[in-house]
């Protein structure tokens, strides 16, 4: 019958598509972002962060970066505590993304110092030679418009004060973007909780173990090289961390703890490398003499050539 009645077919088709729509899309509004989801410590974006978020959207960073950590072992180890619904209640739109061309950014806040981001955004390839992230050199030249940003805060109903708006004058899009990145995932105290505690006394298992030292060198290349040089007359003077020239005098247990816990002042925690891995790096650094760093200078890592 419907095969002869186009209007009837339209009505029936609409009914057919509405069933699944109502149940899986409309109904969930009843629960999602409700009381059960709320997390008291999650705060709306401030004016600078919101401006940065809009730069992120404009540049389409979400085409390469996801912002949602799944409750899977590998995700949690790599990126941090898994994402909770309540962390996103101020995200209009959400920016979970569908691809991980680059790392997930849901918990990147606090991972690096601002100086690292400044250089990475301008020249990703200098920091990470294998990177294919585009260089964003123009953002430093673009100013944030305080009045427009205030309007955005009003539209979203986020709290702000005039001092915050005035402080936007003179800020660049890069400042805003970094402020946004530093906020990501840091509203809940997951870093403190995730801080793994090493049980028992520290014992260096690899004293003078040549194989372990070689592996330590590799681990250094892939984890530390973007911030630290191994020699004094560094080729790029704007490294984020100090050159690690002479580690011989560093107490090995102190060195271990520093790498494991980070310093909270720019040096991130590397507990995720694992106890064995960190000991390998410690032994590599302790055995490293200036002059024999030819193999791990910045830029000559294996893999993709520039």
């Amino acid at each position, binding site marked *: 019958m419907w*095969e002869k009645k186009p209007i009837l077919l339209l009505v029936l088709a609409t009914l057919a*598509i509405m069933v699944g729509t109502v149940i*899986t899309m409309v109904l969930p*509004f009843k629960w*999602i972002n409700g009381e059960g989801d709320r997390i008291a410590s999650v705060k709306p974006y401030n004016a600078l962060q919101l401006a940065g978020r809009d730069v992120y959207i404009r540049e389409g960073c979400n*085409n390469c970066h996801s912002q949602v950590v799944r409750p899977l072992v590998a995700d949690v180890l790599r990126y941090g505590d898994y994402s909770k619904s309540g962390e996103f209640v101020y995200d209009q739109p959400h920016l979970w993304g569908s691809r991980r061309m680059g790392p997930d950014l849901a918990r990147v806040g606090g991972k690096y110092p601002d100086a690292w981001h400044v250089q990475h955004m301008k020249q*990703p390839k200098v920091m990470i030679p294998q990177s294919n992230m585009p260089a964003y050199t123009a953002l430093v030249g673009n100013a944030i418009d305080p009045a427009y940003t205030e309007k955005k805060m009003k539209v979203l109903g986020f709290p702000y004060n005039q001092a915050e708006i005035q402080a936007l004058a003179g800020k660049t899009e890069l400042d805003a973007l970094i402020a946004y990145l530093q906020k990501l995932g840091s509203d809940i105290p997951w870093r403190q909780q995730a801080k793994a505690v090493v049980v028992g006394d520290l014992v260096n298992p690899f004293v003078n173990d040549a194989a372990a030292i070689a592996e330590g060198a590799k681990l250094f290349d892939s984890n530390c090289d973007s911030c630290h040089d191994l020699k004094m007359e560094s080729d790029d003077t704007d490294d984020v961390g100090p050159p690690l020239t002479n580690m011989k005098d560093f107490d090995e247990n102190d060195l271990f703890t520093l790498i494991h816990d980070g310093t909270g002042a720019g040096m991130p925690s590397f507990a995720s490398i*694992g106890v064995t891995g960190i000991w390998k790096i410690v032994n590599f650094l302790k055995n490293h003499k200036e002059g024999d760093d030819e193999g791990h200078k910045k830029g000559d890592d294996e893999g993709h050539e520039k």
Partner: protein
Amino acid sequence: MEKTGYNYDIVKSYVHWSILWGTVAVLVGVLIAFQLVYPSLNLEPYLTYGRLRPLHTNAGIFGWGIGSFFALFFYIVQRLCRRPLWSVGLARFQLYFFNATIIAAAVTLLLGFNTSKEYHELEWPLDIMVVILWVVFSINIIMTIVKRKEEHMYISLWYMLATIVGVAVLYIVNAAEIPVSLFKSYSAYAGTNDANVQWWFGHNAVAMVLTAPPLAIFYYFLPKSTGVPIYSHRMSIIAFWSLIFMYLWTGAHHLIWTPVPDWIQTLALVFSLMLIAPSWGSVFNGYLSMGGQWHQMRENYLVKFFILGITFYGLQTLQGPSQAVRTFSAFIHFTEWVPGHVHMGTMGWVSMVLFAGVYCIFPKIYGREVYSIPLANLHFWLVLIGQLIYSVSMWIAGIQQASMWHSMNPDGNLTYTFVETLAQLYPYWTIRAVSGVIYLAGVLVFIYNLIMTARSPEASLSAAAQNV
């Protein structure tokens, strides 16, 4: 040429424009594929990967996909209703408006005006243009069908009507946003809600744009090309209704393991698996309609396009549901595997059917036989090989990437840093970029063949072509 009373001029214009936008989509696809290998190809600020990728997907889905659907629907609807288009004037207005929208979309996307939502990146003023476009199109199709001279509505018309309501509902609901300025708005939904609405839209864009319209075209032209009617009418009915009923439940399979409530994910998984049935209903219907005619695979290039197209649809609708399974999703989600899946659907299924559809109507709208069948065969092989290399290389890349992401040392720590996993992908990305060039070559052969057809002297058509 107009002796039948059908209006083919309008169809002709749509074909030209959709092919132009299709070429843009493929060119930009090749460009972004190379950008991933050579990041220095990113030209700030307008031509960076983050802005070009949405341009690629929009040009592909809306310019090439929807544009060709307009062309072929306007053709098919006249034939199936045995009457001219309800309003040619409206269709012409729609053509200008369509091109204006696509151009505006390309410009605004490059300027960085976007909502961030996949396949719905266009900002609110463009949303309004899209809605107007769709209303105008719907009225014309519906009125032509209402005033038809043929009592029975053929299968293709069901899919057309479903597309019309489906796209309207999806697009408008997902477009709810609060404007801040002319080219900036914020989504009306927040966080997890926003994600759930977006992927309800996203997956059903696959249903209502990349599945139903190509099926309408397939059901119309396959029998025309082979001369054998569709195998089972009953199977068509069941497949149609269950397809449009089930699709809408499955959006959350893009959100497995996210904070979206578990029960929504589970429903999405279950319905994704059930979708195999109606999808394969159409695949079997296509295969069985070939009964006794398989030799045409050798002789008739149109049949090759259609049968390969429906085969990729069949593979796509087996692979898709498997990606919705929690354990497999944990593995492949976010990886290179997904572009492999996507392009088997877009470059294989959708584009194959569209190429064939255009070849079918070209002799009709130009009154000339297709210029060269060997060239059409060359086109077939180039796009097939390009697409296969693309998808296979991405599947392998995705599996390797996923294994490395999940690999753990005996001490319970990750084996590889993110950057180490990244470094492994470059060879695959290079292969993918080359596969894109092969595909592009196929598209250029296609265009050349069509231009030569249009330019060749008018000749009387063979009976077979008349029949289309």
